[in-house]
Protein backbone atom coordinates (compact mmCIF):
# COMPACT_ATOMS: atom_id res chain seq x y z
CA UNK A 1 0.00 0.00 0.00
CA UNK A 2 1.26 3.47 -0.81
CA UNK A 3 1.73 4.46 2.80
CA UNK A 4 4.28 7.15 2.17
CA UNK A 5 2.55 8.81 -0.76
CA UNK A 6 1.15 12.30 -0.35
CA UNK A 7 -2.45 12.17 0.84
CA UNK A 8 -3.97 13.84 -2.14
CA UNK A 9 -7.61 13.53 -3.06
CA UNK A 10 -7.08 10.67 -5.46
CA UNK A 11 -5.27 8.50 -2.98
CA UNK A 12 -7.73 9.23 -0.24
CA UNK A 13 -10.53 8.33 -2.58
CA UNK A 14 -8.80 5.08 -3.37
CA UNK A 15 -8.91 4.26 0.31
CA UNK A 16 -12.53 5.19 0.75
CA UNK A 17 -13.89 3.96 -2.56
CA UNK A 18 -13.74 0.26 -1.77
CA UNK A 19 -15.55 0.75 1.49
CA UNK A 20 -18.08 2.92 -0.27
CA UNK A 21 -18.76 0.28 -2.86
CA UNK A 22 -19.05 -2.41 -0.23
CA UNK A 23 -21.26 -0.33 2.01
CA UNK A 24 -24.60 -0.74 0.22
CA UNK A 25 -24.32 -4.54 0.29
CA UNK A 26 -23.32 -4.52 3.89
CA UNK A 27 -26.10 -2.13 4.78
CA UNK A 28 -28.62 -4.29 2.98
CA UNK A 29 -27.47 -7.34 4.87
CA UNK A 30 -27.60 -5.47 8.15
CA UNK A 31 -31.14 -4.31 7.56
CA UNK A 32 -32.70 -7.17 5.70
CA UNK A 33 -31.06 -9.98 7.58
CA UNK A 34 -30.01 -8.87 11.03
CA UNK A 35 -32.69 -6.24 11.34
CA UNK A 36 -35.32 -8.79 10.48
CA UNK A 37 -33.83 -11.32 12.86
CA UNK A 38 -34.08 -8.78 15.65
CA UNK A 39 -37.65 -8.05 14.60
CA UNK A 40 -38.51 -11.73 14.79
CA UNK A 41 -36.79 -11.95 18.15
CA UNK A 42 -38.90 -9.11 19.41
CA UNK A 43 -42.07 -10.64 18.00
CA UNK A 44 -41.37 -13.84 19.88
CA UNK A 45 -41.88 -11.95 23.09
CA UNK A 46 -45.19 -10.47 22.03
CA UNK A 47 -48.68 -11.86 21.82
CA UNK A 48 -48.88 -11.50 18.05
CA UNK A 49 -51.67 -13.49 16.46
CA UNK A 50 -52.51 -12.77 12.84
CA UNK A 51 -50.36 -9.70 12.26
CA UNK A 52 -47.53 -8.31 14.36
CA UNK A 53 -48.66 -6.66 17.54
CA UNK A 54 -46.39 -5.17 20.14
CA UNK A 55 -47.76 -6.20 23.49
CA UNK A 56 -45.12 -7.83 25.63
CA UNK A 57 -45.82 -11.30 27.01
CA UNK A 58 -42.37 -12.35 28.11
CA UNK A 59 -41.44 -16.00 27.78
CA UNK A 60 -44.98 -17.27 27.40
CA UNK A 61 -44.60 -18.19 23.73
CA UNK A 62 -41.53 -20.24 24.48
CA UNK A 63 -43.27 -22.01 27.33
CA UNK A 64 -46.23 -22.82 25.14
CA UNK A 65 -43.95 -23.89 22.34
CA UNK A 66 -42.47 -26.71 24.30
CA UNK A 67 -45.89 -27.94 25.33
CA UNK A 68 -46.97 -28.41 21.74
CA UNK A 69 -46.70 -31.97 20.51
CA UNK A 70 -46.08 -30.93 16.96
CA UNK A 71 -42.97 -29.03 17.99
CA UNK A 72 -41.50 -32.14 19.59
CA UNK A 73 -42.26 -34.05 16.41
CA UNK A 74 -40.70 -31.27 14.35
CA UNK A 75 -37.46 -31.23 16.29
CA UNK A 76 -37.15 -35.02 16.33
CA UNK A 77 -37.83 -35.13 12.63
CA UNK A 78 -35.22 -32.49 11.96
CA UNK A 79 -32.64 -34.45 13.91
CA UNK A 80 -33.44 -37.66 12.04
CA UNK A 81 -33.75 -35.99 8.67
CA UNK A 82 -30.71 -33.75 8.94
CA UNK A 83 -28.33 -36.43 10.18
CA UNK A 84 -29.42 -39.01 7.61
CA UNK A 85 -29.52 -36.45 4.83
CA UNK A 86 -26.06 -35.07 5.53
CA UNK A 87 -24.39 -38.43 6.11
CA UNK A 88 -25.96 -40.21 3.14
CA UNK A 89 -25.44 -37.30 0.74
CA UNK A 90 -21.81 -37.02 1.77
CA UNK A 91 -21.18 -40.73 1.36
CA UNK A 92 -22.93 -40.99 -1.97
CA UNK A 93 -21.31 -37.80 -3.21
CA UNK A 94 -17.89 -38.98 -2.13
CA UNK A 95 -18.15 -42.40 -3.71
CA UNK A 96 -19.66 -41.12 -6.92
CA UNK A 97 -16.88 -38.58 -7.17
CA UNK A 98 -14.14 -41.09 -6.49
CA UNK A 99 -15.54 -43.55 -8.99
CA UNK A 100 -16.20 -40.91 -11.60
CA UNK A 101 -12.65 -39.75 -11.24
CA UNK A 102 -11.30 -43.09 -12.44
CA UNK A 103 -11.09 -42.13 -16.09
CA UNK A 104 -14.55 -43.46 -16.73
CA UNK A 105 -15.76 -43.58 -20.24
CA UNK A 106 -18.90 -41.55 -20.54
CA UNK A 107 -18.08 -39.21 -17.69
CA UNK A 108 -19.38 -36.36 -19.80
CA UNK A 109 -22.76 -38.06 -19.92
CA UNK A 110 -22.87 -39.34 -16.37
CA UNK A 111 -21.95 -36.10 -14.67
CA UNK A 112 -24.93 -34.08 -15.91
CA UNK A 113 -27.17 -37.00 -15.03
CA UNK A 114 -25.94 -36.88 -11.46
CA UNK A 115 -26.15 -33.13 -11.34
CA UNK A 116 -29.48 -32.32 -12.94
CA UNK A 117 -31.80 -33.01 -9.96
CA UNK A 118 -30.36 -29.92 -8.31
CA UNK A 119 -31.81 -27.85 -11.13
CA UNK A 120 -35.34 -28.86 -10.27
CA UNK A 121 -37.32 -26.89 -7.79
CA UNK A 122 -38.18 -28.66 -4.56
CA UNK A 123 -41.82 -28.46 -5.51
CA UNK A 124 -41.24 -30.44 -8.69
CA UNK A 125 -39.10 -32.99 -6.87
CA UNK A 126 -41.65 -33.40 -4.11
CA UNK A 127 -44.53 -33.84 -6.52
CA UNK A 128 -42.68 -36.40 -8.65
CA UNK A 129 -41.60 -38.44 -5.65
CA UNK A 130 -45.02 -38.18 -4.05
CA UNK A 131 -46.43 -39.89 -7.07
CA UNK A 132 -43.62 -42.38 -7.28
CA UNK A 133 -43.97 -43.47 -3.66
CA UNK A 134 -47.74 -43.59 -3.50
CA UNK A 135 -48.73 -47.21 -2.88
CA UNK A 136 -51.84 -46.89 -5.00
CA UNK A 137 -50.27 -45.66 -8.22
CA UNK A 138 -46.52 -45.70 -7.74
CA UNK A 139 -43.82 -48.22 -7.20
CA UNK A 140 -45.87 -50.58 -5.04
CA UNK A 141 -48.65 -50.75 -7.60
CA UNK A 142 -46.17 -51.29 -10.41
CA UNK A 143 -44.51 -54.16 -8.58
CA UNK A 144 -47.88 -55.72 -8.03
CA UNK A 145 -48.71 -55.41 -11.70
CA UNK A 146 -45.42 -57.03 -12.56
CA UNK A 147 -46.36 -60.00 -10.47
CA UNK A 148 -44.59 -59.33 -7.21
CA UNK A 149 -47.75 -59.28 -5.14
CA UNK A 150 -46.27 -59.13 -1.70
CA UNK A 151 -44.11 -56.06 -2.33
CA UNK A 152 -44.89 -53.32 0.11
CA UNK A 153 -43.63 -49.79 0.14
CA UNK A 154 -46.16 -47.59 1.82
CA UNK A 155 -43.70 -45.61 3.90
CA UNK A 156 -45.18 -42.36 2.71
CA UNK A 157 -48.49 -43.21 4.36
CA UNK A 158 -46.94 -44.61 7.50
CA UNK A 159 -46.61 -42.16 10.37
CA UNK A 160 -43.39 -43.76 11.59
CA UNK A 161 -41.67 -44.09 8.25
CA UNK A 162 -42.84 -41.04 6.33
CA UNK A 163 -39.89 -38.89 7.37
CA UNK A 164 -37.58 -41.36 5.65
CA UNK A 165 -39.29 -40.75 2.36
CA UNK A 166 -38.37 -37.11 2.76
CA UNK A 167 -34.77 -38.23 3.24
CA UNK A 168 -34.92 -40.23 0.02
CA UNK A 169 -36.27 -37.38 -2.05
CA UNK A 170 -33.86 -34.87 -0.54
CA UNK A 171 -30.85 -37.11 -1.07
CA UNK A 172 -31.93 -37.61 -4.66
CA UNK A 173 -32.01 -33.89 -5.18
CA UNK A 174 -28.68 -32.85 -3.70
CA UNK A 175 -26.23 -35.74 -3.70
CA UNK A 176 -25.18 -34.92 -7.25
CA UNK A 177 -24.17 -31.45 -6.20
CA UNK A 178 -22.11 -32.85 -3.35
CA UNK A 179 -20.48 -35.15 -5.87
CA UNK A 180 -19.53 -32.14 -7.98
CA UNK A 181 -17.90 -30.52 -4.99
CA UNK A 182 -15.88 -33.61 -4.16
CA UNK A 183 -14.94 -34.09 -7.78
CA UNK A 184 -13.60 -30.56 -7.90
CA UNK A 185 -11.73 -31.26 -4.70
CA UNK A 186 -10.24 -34.50 -6.01
CA UNK A 187 -9.05 -32.85 -9.16
CA UNK A 188 -7.33 -30.15 -7.24
CA UNK A 189 -5.20 -32.49 -5.18
CA UNK A 190 -1.50 -32.11 -5.54
CA UNK A 191 -0.31 -35.12 -7.49
CA UNK A 192 3.24 -34.96 -6.12
CA UNK A 193 2.00 -36.21 -2.78
CA UNK A 194 0.20 -39.05 -4.51
CA UNK A 195 3.26 -40.10 -6.43
CA UNK A 196 5.33 -40.04 -3.28
CA UNK A 197 2.83 -42.21 -1.43
CA UNK A 198 2.64 -44.69 -4.25
CA UNK A 199 6.38 -44.95 -4.44
CA UNK A 200 6.31 -45.79 -0.79
CA UNK A 201 4.18 -48.77 -1.75
CA UNK A 202 0.79 -47.61 -0.52
CA UNK A 203 -2.14 -49.75 -1.60
CA UNK A 204 -5.14 -48.17 -3.29
CA UNK A 205 -7.17 -48.45 -0.17
CA UNK A 206 -4.56 -46.77 2.00
CA UNK A 207 -3.88 -44.21 -0.67
CA UNK A 208 -7.42 -43.06 -0.49
CA UNK A 209 -7.84 -43.43 3.22
CA UNK A 210 -4.61 -41.79 4.37
CA UNK A 211 -3.78 -39.34 1.65
CA UNK A 212 -6.66 -38.36 -0.57
CA UNK A 213 -9.62 -38.17 1.74
CA UNK A 214 -7.85 -36.06 4.34
CA UNK A 215 -6.96 -33.64 1.54
CA UNK A 216 -10.63 -33.27 0.86
CA UNK A 217 -11.24 -31.68 4.22
CA UNK A 218 -12.25 -28.30 2.80
CA UNK A 219 -14.76 -30.01 0.51
CA UNK A 220 -16.20 -31.95 3.44
CA UNK A 221 -16.66 -28.75 5.37
CA UNK A 222 -18.29 -26.94 2.48
CA UNK A 223 -20.58 -29.87 1.84
CA UNK A 224 -21.53 -29.89 5.48
CA UNK A 225 -22.37 -26.21 5.43
CA UNK A 226 -24.50 -26.41 2.31
CA UNK A 227 -26.28 -29.60 3.35
CA UNK A 228 -27.07 -28.46 6.86
CA UNK A 229 -28.45 -25.17 5.65
CA UNK A 230 -30.65 -26.94 3.13
CA UNK A 231 -31.78 -29.37 5.80
CA UNK A 232 -32.81 -26.67 8.22
CA UNK A 233 -34.54 -24.57 5.58
CA UNK A 234 -36.44 -27.57 4.16
CA UNK A 235 -39.93 -26.38 3.62
CA UNK A 236 -40.94 -26.71 -0.02
CA UNK A 237 -39.86 -30.31 -0.30
CA UNK A 238 -41.71 -31.50 2.79
CA UNK A 239 -44.89 -29.67 1.83
CA UNK A 240 -44.84 -30.93 -1.75
CA UNK A 241 -44.03 -34.50 -0.78
CA UNK A 242 -46.19 -35.15 2.26
CA UNK A 243 -47.86 -31.87 3.20
CA UNK A 244 -46.41 -32.34 6.65
CA UNK A 245 -48.41 -35.54 7.00
CA UNK A 246 -49.70 -38.11 7.51
CA UNK A 247 -51.25 -35.97 10.23
CA UNK A 248 -48.23 -34.08 11.54
CA UNK A 249 -45.81 -36.95 11.19
CA UNK A 250 -43.39 -35.17 8.91
CA UNK A 251 -43.54 -31.75 10.49
CA UNK A 252 -40.19 -30.00 10.57
CA UNK A 253 -39.39 -26.68 12.25
CA UNK A 254 -39.72 -24.79 8.96
CA UNK A 255 -43.23 -26.12 8.32
CA UNK A 256 -44.13 -25.63 11.95
CA UNK A 257 -43.06 -22.00 11.84
CA UNK A 258 -44.96 -21.35 8.64
CA UNK A 259 -48.12 -23.04 9.84
CA UNK A 260 -48.23 -21.30 13.20
CA UNK A 261 -47.39 -17.89 11.78
CA UNK A 262 -49.55 -17.83 8.69
CA UNK A 263 -52.20 -20.50 8.93
CA UNK A 264 -52.99 -20.78 12.60
CA UNK A 265 -52.77 -17.11 13.41
CA UNK A 266 -50.29 -17.60 16.24
CA UNK A 267 -47.47 -15.43 15.06
CA UNK A 268 -45.95 -15.14 18.53
CA UNK A 269 -45.41 -18.87 18.76
CA UNK A 270 -44.28 -18.97 15.15
CA UNK A 271 -41.70 -16.29 15.88
CA UNK A 272 -40.41 -18.18 18.91
CA UNK A 273 -39.98 -21.33 16.81
CA UNK A 274 -38.14 -19.23 14.23
CA UNK A 275 -35.79 -17.92 16.89
CA UNK A 276 -34.98 -21.47 17.96
CA UNK A 277 -34.34 -22.40 14.34
CA UNK A 278 -31.98 -19.46 13.95
CA UNK A 279 -30.15 -20.33 17.13
CA UNK A 280 -29.63 -23.86 15.85
CA UNK A 281 -28.30 -22.54 12.57
CA UNK A 282 -26.01 -20.15 14.38
CA UNK A 283 -24.74 -22.88 16.67
CA UNK A 284 -23.56 -24.80 13.63
CA UNK A 285 -22.46 -21.99 11.37
CA UNK A 286 -20.69 -19.64 13.70
CA UNK A 287 -18.01 -22.11 14.86
CA UNK A 288 -17.45 -23.19 11.27
CA UNK A 289 -17.17 -19.65 10.00
CA UNK A 290 -14.88 -18.70 12.82
CA UNK A 291 -12.56 -21.63 12.19
CA UNK A 292 -12.53 -21.11 8.46
CA UNK A 293 -12.03 -17.39 8.41
CA UNK A 294 -9.47 -17.30 11.17
CA UNK A 295 -7.10 -19.46 9.14
CA UNK A 296 -7.50 -17.51 5.99
CA UNK A 297 -5.67 -14.39 7.09
Amino acid at each position, binding site marked *: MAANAPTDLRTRMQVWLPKLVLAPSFAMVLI*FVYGFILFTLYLSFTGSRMLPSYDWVGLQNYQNLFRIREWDTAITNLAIFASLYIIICTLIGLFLAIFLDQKIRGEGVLRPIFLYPMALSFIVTGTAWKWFLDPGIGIEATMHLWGWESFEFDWIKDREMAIYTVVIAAVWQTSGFVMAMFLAGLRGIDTEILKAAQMDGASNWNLYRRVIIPQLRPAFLSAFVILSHLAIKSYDLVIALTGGGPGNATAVPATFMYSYTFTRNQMGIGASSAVIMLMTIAAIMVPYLYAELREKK
Partner: protein
Amino acid sequence: MSIASQDSAIRMSRATRTFIYLFLLLFALFYLLPFFIMLVNSVKPLSEITGGQMIALPEVWTIQPWLDAWSTAQIGVEPTGLRPYFWNSIRMVVPAVVICTIIGALNGYILTKWRFRGDTLVFGLMLFSCFIPFQIVLIPMARILGILDIAGTTAGLVLVHVVYGIGFSTLYFRNYYAAFPTELVRAAQIDGAGFFQIFWRILIPSSGPITVVCVIWLFTNIWNDFLFGASFASGGGAPMTVALNNLVNSSTGVREYNVHFAGAIMAAGPTLLVYIVAGRYFVRGLMAGSVKG
Protein backbone atom coordinates in the same frame (compact mmCIF):
# COMPACT_ATOMS: atom_id res chain seq x y z
CA MET B 1 -6.08 -33.41 -13.68
CA SER B 2 -7.82 -36.55 -12.68
CA ILE B 3 -5.90 -38.58 -10.17
CA ALA B 4 -6.30 -41.58 -12.38
CA SER B 5 -4.80 -39.93 -15.40
CA GLN B 6 -1.31 -39.72 -13.99
CA ASP B 7 1.44 -42.17 -14.71
CA SER B 8 1.02 -43.13 -11.13
CA ALA B 9 -2.53 -44.02 -11.95
CA ILE B 10 -4.61 -45.96 -9.49
CA ARG B 11 -4.24 -49.52 -10.56
CA MET B 12 -7.23 -51.73 -10.21
CA SER B 13 -8.46 -55.12 -11.21
CA ARG B 14 -11.03 -55.65 -13.86
CA ALA B 15 -13.43 -56.80 -11.23
CA THR B 16 -13.13 -53.53 -9.37
CA ARG B 17 -13.57 -51.59 -12.56
CA THR B 18 -16.70 -53.51 -13.46
CA PHE B 19 -18.04 -52.90 -10.00
CA ILE B 20 -17.42 -49.21 -10.38
CA TYR B 21 -19.25 -49.05 -13.70
CA LEU B 22 -22.17 -50.96 -12.22
CA PHE B 23 -22.32 -48.66 -9.22
CA LEU B 24 -22.32 -45.58 -11.42
CA LEU B 25 -24.93 -47.00 -13.76
CA LEU B 26 -27.16 -47.96 -10.88
CA PHE B 27 -27.07 -44.45 -9.53
CA ALA B 28 -27.62 -42.99 -12.95
CA LEU B 29 -30.79 -45.06 -13.06
CA PHE B 30 -31.80 -43.83 -9.63
CA TYR B 31 -31.41 -40.23 -10.71
CA LEU B 32 -33.11 -40.65 -14.03
CA LEU B 33 -36.10 -42.73 -13.02
CA PRO B 34 -38.36 -40.04 -11.56
CA PHE B 35 -37.68 -37.72 -14.46
CA PHE B 36 -38.28 -40.52 -16.93
CA ILE B 37 -41.61 -41.24 -15.30
CA MET B 38 -42.60 -37.60 -15.45
CA LEU B 39 -41.59 -37.41 -19.09
CA VAL B 40 -43.28 -40.60 -20.15
CA ASN B 41 -46.50 -39.73 -18.38
CA SER B 42 -46.59 -36.27 -19.82
CA VAL B 43 -47.17 -37.63 -23.30
CA LYS B 44 -49.95 -40.02 -22.44
CA PRO B 45 -53.65 -39.27 -22.61
CA LEU B 46 -55.23 -39.13 -19.16
CA SER B 47 -57.10 -42.40 -19.56
CA GLU B 48 -53.82 -44.27 -19.81
CA ILE B 49 -52.50 -42.75 -16.62
CA THR B 50 -55.48 -43.46 -14.42
CA GLY B 51 -55.97 -46.84 -15.96
CA GLY B 52 -52.47 -48.08 -16.41
CA GLN B 53 -48.99 -48.33 -15.03
CA MET B 54 -46.83 -45.35 -14.52
CA ILE B 55 -43.71 -46.96 -15.99
CA ALA B 56 -45.25 -48.23 -19.21
CA LEU B 57 -44.55 -46.41 -22.41
CA PRO B 58 -47.58 -44.71 -23.89
CA GLU B 59 -49.81 -46.65 -26.17
CA VAL B 60 -51.01 -43.40 -27.64
CA TRP B 61 -48.41 -40.69 -27.89
CA THR B 62 -49.81 -37.19 -27.56
CA ILE B 63 -48.26 -33.79 -27.09
CA GLN B 64 -51.60 -32.32 -26.14
CA PRO B 65 -50.69 -32.14 -22.43
CA TRP B 66 -47.70 -29.99 -23.35
CA LEU B 67 -49.80 -27.68 -25.47
CA ASP B 68 -52.34 -27.49 -22.69
CA ALA B 69 -49.78 -26.72 -20.03
CA TRP B 70 -48.26 -23.99 -22.17
CA SER B 71 -51.32 -22.15 -23.32
CA THR B 72 -54.67 -23.44 -22.19
CA ALA B 73 -54.39 -24.91 -18.72
CA GLN B 74 -56.46 -23.39 -15.94
CA ILE B 75 -54.21 -21.26 -13.80
CA GLY B 76 -56.78 -18.97 -12.30
CA VAL B 77 -59.97 -17.64 -13.74
CA GLU B 78 -58.46 -17.55 -17.20
CA PRO B 79 -57.16 -20.66 -18.94
CA THR B 80 -53.92 -19.09 -19.98
CA GLY B 81 -51.48 -21.91 -19.42
CA LEU B 82 -47.98 -21.20 -18.19
CA ARG B 83 -46.83 -19.03 -21.07
CA PRO B 84 -47.42 -15.52 -19.71
CA TYR B 85 -45.89 -16.46 -16.38
CA PHE B 86 -42.83 -17.85 -18.08
CA TRP B 87 -41.93 -14.41 -19.35
CA ASN B 88 -42.63 -12.91 -15.95
CA SER B 89 -40.05 -15.26 -14.51
CA ILE B 90 -37.49 -14.35 -17.15
CA ARG B 91 -38.11 -10.64 -16.60
CA MET B 92 -37.45 -11.11 -12.92
CA VAL B 93 -34.61 -13.61 -12.93
CA VAL B 94 -32.33 -12.04 -15.51
CA PRO B 95 -31.94 -8.62 -13.85
CA ALA B 96 -31.66 -10.22 -10.42
CA VAL B 97 -28.89 -12.60 -11.50
CA VAL B 98 -26.98 -9.92 -13.37
CA ILE B 99 -27.14 -7.37 -10.57
CA CYS B 100 -26.39 -9.88 -7.85
CA THR B 101 -23.41 -11.31 -9.71
CA ILE B 102 -21.88 -7.91 -10.37
CA ILE B 103 -22.32 -6.85 -6.77
CA GLY B 104 -20.89 -10.16 -5.56
CA ALA B 105 -17.87 -9.77 -7.81
CA LEU B 106 -17.21 -6.24 -6.57
CA ASN B 107 -17.60 -7.34 -2.98
CA GLY B 108 -15.29 -10.29 -3.46
CA TYR B 109 -12.74 -8.02 -5.10
CA ILE B 110 -12.88 -5.55 -2.26
CA LEU B 111 -12.71 -8.12 0.48
CA THR B 112 -9.60 -9.76 -0.95
CA LYS B 113 -7.63 -7.02 -2.67
CA TRP B 114 -8.51 -3.95 -0.64
CA ARG B 115 -8.16 -5.28 2.88
CA PHE B 116 -9.16 -3.15 5.79
CA ARG B 117 -9.54 -3.72 9.47
CA GLY B 118 -12.54 -5.84 10.27
CA ASP B 119 -13.07 -7.06 6.74
CA THR B 120 -13.14 -10.68 7.83
CA LEU B 121 -15.88 -9.85 10.27
CA VAL B 122 -17.81 -8.06 7.55
CA PHE B 123 -17.47 -11.09 5.32
CA GLY B 124 -18.58 -13.41 8.09
CA LEU B 125 -21.66 -11.30 8.75
CA MET B 126 -22.54 -11.22 5.10
CA LEU B 127 -22.06 -14.95 4.80
CA PHE B 128 -24.53 -15.67 7.54
CA SER B 129 -27.22 -14.10 5.40
CA CYS B 130 -27.17 -17.20 3.21
CA PHE B 131 -28.76 -19.16 5.96
CA ILE B 132 -31.82 -17.20 6.87
CA PRO B 133 -35.10 -19.05 6.24
CA PHE B 134 -37.31 -16.98 3.98
CA GLN B 135 -40.54 -17.34 5.93
CA ILE B 136 -39.03 -15.22 8.67
CA VAL B 137 -38.45 -12.24 6.43
CA LEU B 138 -41.80 -12.27 4.68
CA ILE B 139 -43.73 -9.86 6.86
CA PRO B 140 -41.03 -7.28 7.59
CA MET B 141 -39.96 -7.31 3.95
CA ALA B 142 -43.54 -6.68 2.89
CA ARG B 143 -43.59 -3.68 5.17
CA ILE B 144 -40.44 -2.24 3.70
CA LEU B 145 -41.52 -2.85 0.13
CA GLY B 146 -44.72 -1.05 0.95
CA ILE B 147 -42.86 1.91 2.36
CA LEU B 148 -40.67 2.05 -0.72
CA ASP B 149 -43.81 1.80 -2.83
CA ILE B 150 -42.52 -1.05 -4.96
CA ALA B 151 -44.70 -3.81 -3.56
CA GLY B 152 -46.33 -5.90 -6.23
CA THR B 153 -43.86 -4.85 -8.90
CA THR B 154 -41.13 -6.75 -10.70
CA ALA B 155 -38.62 -4.24 -9.33
CA GLY B 156 -39.60 -5.13 -5.80
CA LEU B 157 -39.19 -8.83 -6.48
CA VAL B 158 -35.80 -8.24 -8.07
CA LEU B 159 -34.69 -6.27 -5.02
CA VAL B 160 -35.72 -9.07 -2.68
CA HIS B 161 -33.83 -11.68 -4.65
CA VAL B 162 -30.75 -9.50 -4.96
CA VAL B 163 -30.68 -8.91 -1.22
CA TYR B 164 -30.83 -12.59 -0.39
CA GLY B 165 -28.46 -13.62 -3.15
CA ILE B 166 -25.66 -11.25 -2.19
CA GLY B 167 -24.39 -13.61 0.49
CA PHE B 168 -23.86 -16.40 -2.00
CA SER B 169 -22.36 -14.37 -4.80
CA THR B 170 -19.99 -12.64 -2.43
CA LEU B 171 -18.95 -16.03 -1.05
CA TYR B 172 -18.18 -17.46 -4.46
CA PHE B 173 -16.24 -14.49 -5.76
CA ARG B 174 -14.40 -13.84 -2.55
CA ASN B 175 -13.06 -17.37 -2.36
CA TYR B 176 -12.12 -17.26 -5.99
CA TYR B 177 -10.34 -13.95 -5.84
CA ALA B 178 -8.52 -15.01 -2.67
CA ALA B 179 -6.55 -17.42 -4.86
CA PHE B 180 -5.85 -14.72 -7.43
CA PRO B 181 -2.29 -13.42 -7.30
CA THR B 182 -2.21 -10.12 -5.50
CA GLU B 183 1.07 -9.14 -7.15
CA LEU B 184 -0.76 -8.45 -10.38
CA VAL B 185 -3.01 -6.03 -8.56
CA ARG B 186 -0.06 -4.30 -6.90
CA ALA B 187 1.72 -4.01 -10.19
CA ALA B 188 -1.30 -2.40 -11.74
CA GLN B 189 -1.62 0.01 -8.85
CA ILE B 190 1.97 1.07 -9.23
CA ASP B 191 1.24 1.67 -12.89
CA GLY B 192 -1.42 4.08 -11.73
CA ALA B 193 -4.56 2.06 -12.36
CA GLY B 194 -7.51 2.95 -10.21
CA PHE B 195 -10.02 0.86 -8.30
CA PHE B 196 -12.44 0.17 -11.12
CA GLN B 197 -9.78 -0.11 -13.77
CA ILE B 198 -8.05 -2.91 -11.94
CA PHE B 199 -11.38 -4.68 -11.51
CA TRP B 200 -12.37 -4.32 -15.10
CA ARG B 201 -9.01 -4.98 -16.77
CA ILE B 202 -7.42 -7.56 -14.53
CA LEU B 203 -9.94 -9.50 -12.47
CA ILE B 204 -12.96 -9.70 -14.70
CA PRO B 205 -11.22 -11.35 -17.66
CA SER B 206 -10.13 -14.29 -15.50
CA SER B 207 -13.44 -14.66 -13.71
CA GLY B 208 -15.10 -16.89 -16.25
CA PRO B 209 -15.41 -20.12 -14.27
CA ILE B 210 -16.62 -18.57 -11.06
CA THR B 211 -19.11 -16.37 -12.87
CA VAL B 212 -20.59 -19.51 -14.33
CA VAL B 213 -20.90 -21.10 -10.90
CA CYS B 214 -22.48 -17.99 -9.46
CA VAL B 215 -24.91 -17.55 -12.34
CA ILE B 216 -25.98 -21.19 -12.23
CA TRP B 217 -26.54 -21.11 -8.49
CA LEU B 218 -28.43 -17.81 -8.48
CA PHE B 219 -30.46 -18.62 -11.57
CA THR B 220 -31.58 -21.94 -10.13
CA ASN B 221 -32.51 -20.57 -6.74
CA ILE B 222 -34.30 -17.49 -8.00
CA TRP B 223 -36.11 -19.25 -10.82
CA ASN B 224 -37.36 -21.94 -8.44
CA ASP B 225 -38.46 -19.64 -5.67
CA PHE B 226 -42.13 -19.76 -4.79
CA LEU B 227 -42.68 -17.87 -1.56
CA PHE B 228 -41.37 -14.46 -2.60
CA GLY B 229 -42.88 -14.80 -6.03
CA ALA B 230 -46.33 -15.45 -4.64
CA SER B 231 -46.17 -12.76 -1.97
CA PHE B 232 -44.46 -9.88 -3.72
CA ALA B 233 -45.78 -10.04 -7.26
CA SER B 234 -49.20 -8.97 -8.33
CA GLY B 235 -51.46 -11.57 -9.91
CA GLY B 236 -50.60 -10.95 -13.51
CA GLY B 237 -46.93 -10.43 -12.82
CA ALA B 238 -46.43 -13.64 -10.89
CA PRO B 239 -43.52 -15.91 -11.80
CA MET B 240 -43.89 -19.36 -13.23
CA THR B 241 -43.56 -21.21 -9.94
CA VAL B 242 -46.75 -19.60 -8.69
CA ALA B 243 -48.59 -20.56 -11.86
CA LEU B 244 -47.28 -24.11 -11.64
CA ASN B 245 -48.44 -24.33 -8.05
CA ASN B 246 -51.91 -23.20 -9.10
CA LEU B 247 -51.93 -25.77 -11.85
CA VAL B 248 -50.88 -28.66 -9.68
CA ASN B 249 -52.52 -27.87 -6.36
CA SER B 250 -56.10 -27.15 -7.33
CA SER B 251 -58.30 -28.57 -4.69
CA THR B 252 -61.15 -29.94 -6.75
CA GLY B 253 -61.80 -31.46 -10.10
CA VAL B 254 -60.10 -34.08 -12.16
CA ARG B 255 -56.35 -34.21 -11.65
CA GLU B 256 -54.83 -34.02 -15.08
CA TYR B 257 -51.54 -35.58 -14.12
CA ASN B 258 -50.21 -35.51 -17.64
CA VAL B 259 -50.66 -31.76 -17.87
CA HIS B 260 -49.13 -31.35 -14.41
CA PHE B 261 -46.03 -33.24 -15.40
CA ALA B 262 -45.71 -31.41 -18.68
CA GLY B 263 -46.02 -28.16 -16.77
CA ALA B 264 -43.46 -29.21 -14.20
CA ILE B 265 -40.91 -30.16 -16.83
CA MET B 266 -41.59 -26.92 -18.65
CA ALA B 267 -41.05 -24.98 -15.46
CA ALA B 268 -37.77 -26.77 -14.92
CA GLY B 269 -36.75 -26.27 -18.56
CA PRO B 270 -34.55 -23.20 -18.29
CA THR B 271 -32.67 -24.41 -15.23
CA LEU B 272 -32.12 -27.83 -16.77
CA LEU B 273 -30.85 -26.16 -19.90
CA VAL B 274 -28.45 -24.05 -17.90
CA TYR B 275 -27.13 -27.07 -16.01
CA ILE B 276 -26.68 -29.20 -19.10
CA VAL B 277 -25.05 -26.51 -21.17
CA ALA B 278 -22.87 -25.04 -18.47
CA GLY B 279 -22.47 -28.10 -16.28
CA ARG B 280 -18.94 -28.78 -17.37
CA TYR B 281 -17.88 -25.29 -16.43
CA PHE B 282 -19.61 -25.77 -13.15
CA VAL B 283 -17.13 -28.35 -11.94
CA ARG B 284 -14.25 -26.36 -13.37
CA GLY B 285 -15.49 -23.30 -11.58
CA LEU B 286 -15.80 -25.15 -8.31
CA MET B 287 -12.30 -26.45 -8.81
CA ALA B 288 -10.93 -23.01 -9.27
CA GLY B 289 -11.01 -22.38 -5.57
CA SER B 290 -14.57 -21.29 -4.94
CA VAL B 291 -16.14 -23.80 -2.64
CA LYS B 292 -13.20 -26.03 -1.94
CA GLY B 293 -12.70 -24.16 1.30
